[in-house]
């Protein structure tokens, strides 16, 4: 129960704070934009200086002028767009033995044709016996992280499969994933063997995309990344790394601490335009096979209601090396967002197909229980779980 009357004073405070932050952001943005322009004038030197100084924070790798903005070309038509998304039922610690469920959708649209779309989902029940060696070791302690990692892996695996199935000779294709391709979240499982196995399997799928020549991109909505801001902070000498004199810039203003990349590009990009491409310097990238290292650009997504949103589009190095593919992805993602009113249509369909609704979840547990009871096993349901679902008066 939430007592809203008690919150009134706290909401007043929050409102004041929000106004202060907004003012500071505006000043930070101006300073960041100035720094970006200054940095653009001699970006190869800046990049060399970053490599030399090796700041501890994650700094965007420059591969072209960082203030470049690109207008989207027309999306090719016909075109094949495939997407996947996933959801899960996490293990319940009141249930023994441990199991969890992954549900991954497969969407394939042949835009510009009237061919039938692919719209389906594939569930997979997983339990200890089914997990490979080592991986079961962390299931107890790193449950949500592990389940999420296995779901991401399954999403990528099915994205590859649906791309291969939907591919039409001579017709361009774009494969869209949801969320980041950078597996930084895998680090921290306190089990190197598991981390390595998960990364290896994930990047193996990425490599298959490259080998099959299927351009893949992932869409990150409202990204909270600060790699470009960190680059600007480096040239503004805000990081504890030495800045060579010839590249230092000094626009006046408050520190860029707390500013996000999307705040910067929101001021730089026109609706529908994308930024330059940058390289990720995430440590985990060292484990990615050559050609699959992750690069990204920012995109200003127009919306029918006016307030556009910033997105980050990630793509492997081999795709970035082929400018026509970057154009294709830019145009496709933009068109997808226009049709999906701010979010890529194929991904939102993929989400709809992947989501497990409360009623379906109930049906799944009922089915499981009935099966176990019929087999003479004890029901998996604990009293605690049941009481949480149906509180009694």
């Amino acid at each position, binding site marked *: 129960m939430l007592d809203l009357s008690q919150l009134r004073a706290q909401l007043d405070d929050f409102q004041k704070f929000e106004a202060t932050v907004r003012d500071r952001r505006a000043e930070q943005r101006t300073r960041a934009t100035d720094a970006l322009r200054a940095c653009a004038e001699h970006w190869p030197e800046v990049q060399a200086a970053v490599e030399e100084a090796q700041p501890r924070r994650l700094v965007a790798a420059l591969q072209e002028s960082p203030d470049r903005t690109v207008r989207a070309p027309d999306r090719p*038509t016909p075109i094949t767009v495939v997407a996947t998304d996933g959801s899960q039922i996490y293990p319940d610690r009141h249930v023994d033995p441990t199991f969890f469920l992954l549900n991954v959708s497969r*969407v394939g*649209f*042949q*835009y*510009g*044709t*009237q*061919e*039938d*779309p692919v*719209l389906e989902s594939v569930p997979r029940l997983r339990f200890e016996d089914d997990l490979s060696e080592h991986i079961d070791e962390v299931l107890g302690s790193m449950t949500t992280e592990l389940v999420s990692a296995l779901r991401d892996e399954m999403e990528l695996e099915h994205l590859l499969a649906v791309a291969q199935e939907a591919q039409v000779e001579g017709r361009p294709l774009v494969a869209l994933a949801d969320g980041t391709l950078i597996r930084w979240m895998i680090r921290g499982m306190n089990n190197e063997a598991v981390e390595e196995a998960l990364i290896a399997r994930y990047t193996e799928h990425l490599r298959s995309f490259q080998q099959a020549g299927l351009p893949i991109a992932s869409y990150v909505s409202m990204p909270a990344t600060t790699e470009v801001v960190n680059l600007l902070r480096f040239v503004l000498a805000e990081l504890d790394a030495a800045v060579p004199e010839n590249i230092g810039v000094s626009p006046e203003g408050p520190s860029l601490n707390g500013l996000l990349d999307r705040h910067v590009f929101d001021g730089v990009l026109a609706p529908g335009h994308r930024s330059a491409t940058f390289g990720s310097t995430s440590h985990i990238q060292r484990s990615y096979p050559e050609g699959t290292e992750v690069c990204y650009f920012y995109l200003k997504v127009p919306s029918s209601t006016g307030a556009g949103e910033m997105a980050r589009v990630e793509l492997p190095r081999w795709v970035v090396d082929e400018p026509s593919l970057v154009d294709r992805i830019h145009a496709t993602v933009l068109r997808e967002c226009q*049709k999906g009113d701010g979010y890529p*249509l194929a991904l939102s*369909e993929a989400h*709809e197909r992947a989501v497990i*609704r409360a009623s379906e979840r109930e049906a799944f547990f009922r089915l499981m229980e009935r099966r176990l009871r019929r087999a003479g096993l004890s029901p998996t349901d604990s009293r605690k779980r049941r009481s949480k679902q149906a509180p009694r008066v």
Partner: protein
Amino acid sequence: MSEREPIGEVIESSTRQFVVEVYEEAESPAFGSWIRVEGDGDRTLFGLVSHVETGSYDSNREAVALGLSPEERAEEMPMVQELLRTTVRAQVLACRDREGRIRQTLPPHPPDIHDFVHLCTDEHVRTLDAPFDFLRTLVEHPDPAVPVDDLLVAVLRRIYEANGGEHGGREALVAAGRALSRLLDDDHERLQSILRRVL
């Protein structure tokens, strides 16, 4: 599509009425037309289509205006068609027993969920003939959500057509009209209003 091909499947069932999801590629049966369910063995149920509805599959997703031509919609929003479905509700008014006799009364058992549903041919409609006892069920226990007189108009029109229309349909129509007249307690105004709309 031949009449041998099912047009859909039963998705809700009772002895009084059933709901059919119509296959995407099938033509939806018209309001007031007859459909039949071939159950196990020789059992056949006859239902009168009293309600036809098209909407979103998913109760969480509403259909919204898109401002696209049908071609553009198919080319750029291909999931829309997949998310729409047509369902029809049919009142059970007759059944055929194992001996092959048609009884104009409710069946002993409802159809099974997922039973296939077929359109009735003219021949089937002609067998649902005098004394038209099904009309009594229809008039006295109508589906409350359906304007029963409009349904009667459609039923009579179907009887007329199945019996040859201009070439012989009138006789069957008059017979059904007489039966209806008795049911309506000689409410001539109501009967006239129905008959006026048949032809």
